[in-house]
C-alpha cells in the first residue's frame, strides 16, 4: 500500500489480571490477546471476526486506549499513541470514536437526543455557543437520517435502529478519522440492520472514515469490509482482502468457521458440507502450547505443538498463521 495507514497496530498484547481466589496469593495474569498486527488505510474497513472470547473486543478497546497494551505499538495517523497520556490522549480521543452493540443501554435515558449528541462537543470544548451547537446537532441528525424533531426527545421513544443512528451521530460529532464499531448491528432486526449498514457505508464514502468493524456475523462483515481479519483464542489467524478470505481461506479455522455459517438458500444449505473440527474453543487461561488451534486441527504436526506460527505471507496480501498450508 502506498497510502500511509490511518491505524497501524503491531505486536499488540493485552493482559488481564486474574484474581487468584485467595488473599495474599500472587495474581495470575491472562494473556487475552498477543501478537496482533494489522493496518487500516484511510477510508478503509477492516472486519475483525471471531467467536466469543477470541479477543476481538479487547483489540478494539486497546486501539482506543481504553485499556493499555502490555506489548506492541499502536500508531494512529503517523503518531505512536501506545503510551500517550494526559491532554494529548484526551485530544486523540476526539479523533477515534466507538459505536457500541446495544443501543438500549449505551444511551443515557435521562438525556435528550440533542444533549447526547452535543456532549462530546462540549467535553472537547468545541461548542462555541448554544446556537451553534443546535445547528451542528441538526446537521448530524440529518446526516444519519433522523427527523429534525428528534433533538428534543428522549432515547426511549426511538426504535433500536433509530437509537443506533443516535449513537452514530454522537460518534460523528467530533469528525473522527477512525470509528471502532463493536457489533454495531447484532442487536438489530434483519430489515433494520440493512439500514444501519447502508448508513455506515454512506458515511464512509462521504467522510472518508476508517472503520474497525468488530462482529461475529460473517455475512455482514463480508458485505461491509474491504479486508477481514479472523481471530482465534487471542491471535489473528488469518488476514486478507475479503474476496481472498471468503473464496480462498487458508487457515483450517477460517475454513471451519465459514462452513458453519448458515446461508439463506435452502437448496445450497442442504447440500453444503460442514468442515468439522472436534473439540471446544480453548480455555485461554490455560492455552495449549504452540499453535492454539492445534488440538482441533486435522493438519497438526509436531512443529504445531511446539512452535506458535506468526502470520506468514501466503499470497500478495494474504497472511495466515499456519505452518502447513499454503495458498
Amino acid at each position, binding site marked *: 500500500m502506498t497510502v500511509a495507514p490511518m491505524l497501524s497496530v503491531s505486536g499488540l498484547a493485552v493482559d488481564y489480571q486474574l484474581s487468584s481466589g485467595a488473599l495474599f496469593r500472587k495474581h495470575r495474569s491472562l494473556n487475552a490477546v498477543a501478537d496482533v498486527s494489522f493496518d487500516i488505510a484511510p477510508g478503509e474497513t477492516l472486519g475483525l471476526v471471531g467467536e466469543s472470547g477470541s479477543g476481538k473486543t479487547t483489540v478494539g478497546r486497546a486501539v482506543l486506549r481504553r485499556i493499555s497494551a502490555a506489548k506492541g505499538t499502536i500508531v494512529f495517523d503517523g503518531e505512536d499513541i501506545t503510551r500517550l497520556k494526559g491532554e494529548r490522549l484526551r485530544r486523540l480521543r476526539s479523533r477515534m470514536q466507538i459505536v457500541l452493540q446495544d443501543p438500549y443501554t449505551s444511551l443515557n435515558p435521562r438525556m435528550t437526543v440533542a444533549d447526547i449528541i452535543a456532549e462530546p462537543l462540549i467535553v472537547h470544548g468545541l461548542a462555541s455557543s448554544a446556537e451553534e451547537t443546535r445547528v451542528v446537532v441538526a446537521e448530524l441528525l440529518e446526516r444519519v437520517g433522523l427527523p429534525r424533531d428528534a433533538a428534543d426527545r428522549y432515547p426511549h421513544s426511538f426504535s433500536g435502529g433509530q437509537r443506533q443512528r443516535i449513537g452514530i451521530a454522537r460518534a460523528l460529532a467530533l469528525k473522527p478519522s477512525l470509528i471502532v464499531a463493536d457489533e454495531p448491528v447484532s442487536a438489530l432486526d434483519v430489515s433494520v440492520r440493512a439500514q444501519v449498514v*447502508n448508513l455506515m*457505508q454512506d458515511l464512509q464514502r462521504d467522510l472518508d472514515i476508517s472503520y474497525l468493524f468488530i462482529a461475529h456475523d460473517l*455475512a455482514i462483515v463480508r458485505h461491509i469490509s474491504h479486508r477481514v481479519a479472523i481471530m482465534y483464542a487471542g491471535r489473528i489467524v488469518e488476514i486478507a482482502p475479503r474476496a481472498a478470505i471468503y473464496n480462498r481461506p487458508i487457515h483450517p479455522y477460517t475454513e471451519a468457521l465459514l462452513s458453519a455459517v448458515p446461508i*439463506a438458500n*435452502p437448496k445450497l444449505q442442504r447440500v453444503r458440507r460442514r468442515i468439522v473440527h472436534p473439540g471446544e474453543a480453548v480455555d485461554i487461561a490455560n492455552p495449549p502450547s504452540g499453535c492454539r488451534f492445534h488440538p482441533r486441527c486435522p493438519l497438526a504436526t509436531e512443529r504445531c505443538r511446539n512452535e506458535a506460527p506468526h502470520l506468514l505471507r501466503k499470497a500478495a496480501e494474504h497472511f495466515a498463521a499456519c505452518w502447513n498450508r499454503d495458498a
Partner: protein
Amino acid sequence: MTSPLLEIDNLHVCFDTRAGTVQALRGVSLSLAPGETLGIVGESGSGKSVTAQAVMGLIDVPGRISEGEVRWQGRPLAGRNADRDARPVWGKEITMVFQNPMTSLNPLMTVGSQISEVIELHLGLSRPAARRRAAELLSSVGISGAERRLDQYPHEFSGGMRQRVMIAMGIACEPKLLIADEPTTALDVTIQAQILELMAELQEKMGLAIVLITHDLGIVAGLCHRVAVMYAGQIVETGLVDAIFENPLHPYTQGLIRSTPGLDAEEERLTAIEGAPPGLLQPPAGCSFLPRCPIGDKGCEAPQAMRIFETGMVACRKAGVPAWSEAL
C-alpha cells in the same frame, strides 16, 4: 396427509398494560403435521414467541387469549374452551427449548437431578431408573462422560453444552413436538451448527415435529420444511421453504430475504426496509406493512384476506408483484 398434530386457529392474544391493550397476536392460524419442521420467522415484537407461549399454555396475566384456540390432536388445549384434561400434554408431548440456556437451568441443582426430575414427574420412573435414563439422554445429545457430568452444575458446562442439556430435557419424555425459541441465538456459529445438526438428527430418529422460532433465515433454510413469516402479530406468508426463498410473494418477505447478505453475492448495497413495524396498541386495520411497503396503495388500507397459492398462503392483494427494484 395425516391429520394435523397441532392446530392454531384464529388465535388472538392481548396484554393489558397501563398504556392500553397490546394486541400481540391478531388472528394467527397454523397447522403442523407429525414429524414436520416449521420455521417461524419475524422481527422482534412480531409475535413469534407469544405464539409459542400460547401453544405451551404460558400466557399469563397480564396476557390473555382473547379469541381463537390451540388444538392438540384435535383436542382444545388452550383458548376459551380448553380441555383441562389435556394439560398433561405440556412438558410431556410438547416441550420447549429456550434461547438462553443459562437462565433456563436451575444453577443450584445438578444437571442430572434436573433431567431426572422431568422423567420422574412425567414418566413415573423410580429415581435410579430416571438417573440411568438421564445418562442415556446426555450421551444421545453428544455429551461425553455422561455419568460423571450428571453430577455437575450448569456453570460447569459451556454455552453449547448447556443447550445440549436443555435439548436432552426437551426430549426426555419422547415428545411429539419440540418448540425451540431462538435455540442458537446465544451461541457461536460453529456451536450453532452442531446444535442444529443435533436437532435434525433427533428429528429423523424420533420422528419429532419441530417448531423453530428464529430471526435467522439461514437456519430456516437448512432445517425447515415449511416457513411462516410473521409481521406485527399476524402471519403474512406461509409456504414450503424452497418456494418462499426462491419466489417470496409478500413484499415483506421479499424485503427480508433481500436484506440478508449472503457469502457469495456481490451486492453493492443491501435492500433496507425503511421505517419500523407499527405499535400494537393501535394496530392498523388494514395491512400492517403498508407504511413500509414500496408498492402499497389505497386498497391496502382494508384488512387483507389470506390468498391461497399452490405452495402456500399470502396476506397481500399484490402478492407476487416484485416490490423492491433491482437498482436501489
